């Protein structure tokens, strides 16, 4: 539900909630996903996976499996013959990242439950799944490392003996004088902030079909990054890149879990090469939970220095990141993405983030929707509430006191990051138009008298997205071994129809619609006449894919540049035909016409007719109407907003009910408000999932306890509220359209609003702080502890403290319990 829909833009498609062009095929079952693909002679593959979290492979006996009727091949690591293992693409200058070999099939040890050991290929899926059970693997168990904090202790068992430590890397980002900042503070609030492990859990699990013929590989994969996949397949297979075609057909959600180069991709290529037939592998949900990378899993100690008037003097986050057993494509870099916005939307003179990555015997973590930024926002926005409480100051007053003011933009933070645009007071004002805070406080007090515990939590956030610009993110900057531009090719056909190729690889973002709306406005045609093609490395220009809320703000900007090249040529053609100057031609009522004489003009179809039947083109002009553009922005984009979550907590049972959720987001001018609403809804739902329900949990033996949707509590529509959304529109100064990304904003913003709301509801019972996930039992136990009763978990006081900045020398750990006492 949207509170306020702006009126449709007159004579324009941009800004309208046009129904998505993708949806008719997707909702009538006519989408074509990788698993739908049937090729002549298609074989099927099943993977034999480790039931052990850490073990030496003593032997693998494939004979029994090979003897099963219908089995064509059983391969182990020794059979693959790859030129390279799976990639890790982050090499931060001056930082050592311990990166173990990661081969698609384990060579001599398995490092987590689900680690692939062998692959069975056969005539049908039933045969290979049965045969996989007959591959006999003898394991010799090794000590298991599960707790990332214990993993760093002297004498811990090791995940990878060769490094002599479980530490993957250390990475820091800081700016301003931290010591001076904390020295200046009247109060230092310190909290332990846990951000537990989650799964991306797209509706469509992964799937791969590989077809090797005549030395050429064609591969279909449910991926967000077809071009990266082609590059890395070339490297792993030792094959020239142009002989590989990667297709990402309809992809049923990714949430970052498909921003990866997975073992099954080179494996299926090898299986096809070995058998001489196309081979398909489709991930089961159980496999997805085990081996498709997880997200989050950070424990942070966050310190915030504040003066008695509420001004923040410093923030310091020390993060221990559980990265799992292998370094996947971007694994160690993900926590760092949060460091770039560790000061949130506040003016903080000193900001520091120190990250320690740790190996454990778990699946790797990597980018899951928000990727580092939900964690950072959770730290900032929970400690803001904690600080407000310690200061005896209203939570919103503390936020307003520290907002970077509108007139400061573009604003350079202490980290040297330039926030392109923002109006944080504006979005909070808009939020409070929908949510009457003062009335709520009265309602809350009245409810409490009746024994009902209502609470409100806020999150005022900004994030960094539109992943690019290459000179910041690239090898000599942040250290990603790639550029992060985007590309587009625009072809106007002789009839005036338009085909747009984009290097973005959408999988639910509605790019086929929003791009068509933009192009239609610039060509004076209808979006129905614009076809947006994506996800095929053979048909379009080189691209980089969809992640980091970049499709529109990077890919869309590339498209606009290609479109503008075409319209510039059209103007020359029209000017030539009408004997006018090209600079006098502009789009008027669907025609490229002479300024001031709208009757003198040509439609796109008329102009393209001239371009393709070139009897009368300007001297030296090439025929045709087709242009491409590559775009590498000068900066990121920084969406922002203000969210409010209203909860009722059943204090007897600990159950949290979200009564209302109001979100005001600003991603610049809206191209398609309905798509923005959808992204915000889904993003918040995913954050609610993390805050209240979902958790990837391994036991002490490294067994995945939450390996199905019975135990991994992914919420359904019945478990989330109706969302109330609204927008402010503050144009980005980075992008020509002013647009910013919105795909991750909801997820980045929402979890602290939920947590803060629950704490607010339970303060009358003495609960002052909580950790996610806020499962009923955890909430109940915390209430029991606060009431002086039983409860099984640790004292919340161990989670941090508050202390007189000067009395304790400004450092060290705080007292055992949060201190409600005097300020210095």
């Amino acid at each position, binding site marked *: 539900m949207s509170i306020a829909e702006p009126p449709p833009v007159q004579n324009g498609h941009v800004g309208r909630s046009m129904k998505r062009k993708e949806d008719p095929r997707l909702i009538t079952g006519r989408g074509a996903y990788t698993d739908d693909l049937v090729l002549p002679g298609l074989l099927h593959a099943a993977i034999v996976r480790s039931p052990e979290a850490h073990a030496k492979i003593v032997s693998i006996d494939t004979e029994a499996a090979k003897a099963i009727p219908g089995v064509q091949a059983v391969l182990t690591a020794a059979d693959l013959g790859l030129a390279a293992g799976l990639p890790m693409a982050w090499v931060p200058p001056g930082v050592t990242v311990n990166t173990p070999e990661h081969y698609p099939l384990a060579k001599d040890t398995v490092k987590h439950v689900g680690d692939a050991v062998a692959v069975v290929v056969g005539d049908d*899926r*039933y045969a290979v799944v*049965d045969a996989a059970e007959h591959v006999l693997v003898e394991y010799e168990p090794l000590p298991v490392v599960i707790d990332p904090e214990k993993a760093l202790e002297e004498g811990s068992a090791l995940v990878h003996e060769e490094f002599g430590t479980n530490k993957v890397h250390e990475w820091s980002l800081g700016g301003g004088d931290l010591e001076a900042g904390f020295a200046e503070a009247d109060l230092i609030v310190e909290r332990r902030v846990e951000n537990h492990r989650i799964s991306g859990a797209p509706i469509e699990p992964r799937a791969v079909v590989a077809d090797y013929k005549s030395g050429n590989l064609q591969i279909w994969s449910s991926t967000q990054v077809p071009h990266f996949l082609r590059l890395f397949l070339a490297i792993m297979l030792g094959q020239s890149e142009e002989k590989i075609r990667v297709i990402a057909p309809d992809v049923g959600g990714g949430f970052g879990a498909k921003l990866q180069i997975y073992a099954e991709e080179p494996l299926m290529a090898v299986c096809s090469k070995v058998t001489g037939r196309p081979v398909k592998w489709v991930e*089961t949900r159980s496999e997805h939970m085990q081996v498709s990378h997880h997200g989050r899993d950070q424990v942070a100690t966050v310190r915030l220095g504040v003066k008695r008037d509420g001004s923040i003097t410093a923030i310091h986050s020390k993060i221990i990141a559980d990265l799992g057993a292998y370094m996947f494509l971007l694994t160690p870099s993900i926590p760092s993405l949060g460091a770039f916005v560790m000061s949130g939307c506040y003016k903080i003179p000193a900001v520091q983030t120190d990250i320690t990555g740790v190996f454990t015997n778990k699946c790797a973590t990597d980018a899951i929707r928000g990727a580092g930024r939900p964690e950072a926002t959770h730290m900032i926005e929970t400690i803001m509430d904690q600080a407000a409480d310690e200061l005896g100051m209203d939570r919103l007053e503390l936020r307003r006191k520290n907002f970077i003011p509108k007139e400061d933009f573009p604003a350079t933070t202490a980290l040297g990051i330039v926030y392109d645009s923002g109006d944080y007071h504006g979005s909070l004002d808009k939020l409070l138009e929908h949510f009457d805070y003062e009335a709520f406080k009265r309602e809350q007090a009245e409810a409490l008298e009746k024994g009902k515990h209502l609470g409100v939590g806020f999150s005022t956030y900004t994030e960094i997205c539109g992943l690019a610009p290459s000179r910041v993110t690239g090898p000599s900057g942040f250290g990603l071994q790639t550029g992060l531009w985007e590309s587009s090719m625009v072809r106007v056909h002789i009839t005036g129809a338009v085909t747009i190729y984009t290097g973005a690889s959408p999988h639910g973002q509605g790019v086929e619609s929003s791009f068509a709306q933009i192009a239609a406005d610039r060509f004076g045609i209808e979006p129905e006449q614009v076809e947006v093609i994506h996800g095929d490395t053979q048909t379009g220009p080189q691209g980089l894919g969809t992640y980091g809320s970049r499709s529109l703000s990077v890919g869309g900007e590339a498209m606009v540049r290609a479109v503008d090249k075409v319209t510039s040529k059209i103007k020359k053609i029209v000017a030539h035909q009408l004997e006018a100057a090209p600079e006098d031609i502009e789009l008027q009522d669907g025609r490229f016409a002479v300024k001031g004489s709208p009757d003198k003009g040509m439609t796109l179809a008329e102009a393209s007719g001239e371009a393709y039947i070139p009897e009368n083109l300007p001297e030296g002009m090439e025929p045709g109407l087709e242009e491409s553009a590559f775009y590498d922005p000068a900066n990121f984009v920084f969406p922002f907003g203000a969210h409010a979550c209203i909860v009722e907590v059943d204090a007897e049972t600990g*159950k949290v009910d979200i009564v209302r959720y109001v979100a005001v987001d600003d991603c610049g001018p809206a191209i398609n408000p309905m798509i923005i609403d959808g992204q915000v809804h889904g993003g918040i739902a995913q954050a609610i999932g993390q805050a209240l329900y979902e958790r990837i*949990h391994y036991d002490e033996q490294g067994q995945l306890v939450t390996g199905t949707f019975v135990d991994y*509590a992914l919420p359904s529509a019945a478990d989330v509220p109706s969302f109330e959304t609204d927008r402010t529109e503050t144009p980005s100064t980075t992008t020509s359209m002013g647009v910013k990304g919105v795909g991750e904003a909801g997820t980045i913003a929402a979890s602290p609003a939920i947590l803060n709301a629950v704490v607010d509801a339970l303060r009358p019972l003495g609960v002052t702080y909580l950790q996610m996930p806020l499962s*009923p039992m955890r909430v109940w136990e915390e209430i029991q502890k606060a009431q002086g009763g039983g409860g099984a978990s640790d004292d919340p006081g161990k989670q941090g403290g508050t202390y007189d900045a000067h009395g304790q020398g400004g450092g060290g750990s705080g007292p055992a319990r949060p201190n409600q006492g005097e300020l210095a």
Partner: protein
Amino acid sequence: MIPIEFDYKAPTTLEEAFEALREGGEDAKILAGGHSLVPLMKLRLAAPTVLIDLRKVAGLDGIQRENGTFRIGAMTKHYAVSQETGLGLAALASSTIADPQVRYRGTLGGSLAHGDPASDMLAIFLAMEGSVSIMGANGVREVAASDFFEDYLTTAVAEGEILTEIRLPAMDGYGFGYEKFNRRQEDWAMVAVGSLVKKAADGSCEDVRVGLTHMAGTPLRATAVEEALRGKPLDAASIAAAAELAAEGTNPPADLNASAEYKKHLARVLCRRTLEQAAA
């Protein structure tokens, strides 16, 4: 997500079903709605060699009231039970089972015969003091609810037998309440409590029944609560005092989301709430 190979039979009469059961031997399984068995098969936690699907067998579906008793065919869907308002507590509890897909496919007989103590209808059947007809090679036997649940996933339905009918008393004059505690709407109960209360003319408690879900390997009656409340005034104080006994004699299985202690606490809270609803 692919089960081990199995045969499938869909007999049209009970005679054929029994023959298929005999032929199938110990690894044959009766298939009703399939919403408990099939997921277990897909995870390869159950591996029957033959499924005997009762959906084509006539006469196993439907609800009839005869005098003070509802006769419910074993293949009657949860949805149909939920729509029969005369069933009171049973209808209410049915309406909360999992999600619409499960309610439209899952059956009362299948649920009872499966004997999962986390599913809704077992404790309701127990509290209502229903009974079932179980048919075997030697005819039909009737088993009371109190004798039906033997152990975790084990009921009085023996190998070679088929549960054909459930009988639930109409419970005229009883108020009722049902509270299920779970994390998500569609989840099995972490704990659930169903209560039935009959008021005497003076407003005191003439009769009370309390069924507990997922507080042991089988569904339970909260007999201590019932004894404490029977004959007492139905005021808040006596209800609260009785509900405090809800966890007596229970042995709840703990999991990641709920310790035994927490479940016992929940049982007491939910018991009080359902008694209040039932007495209202």
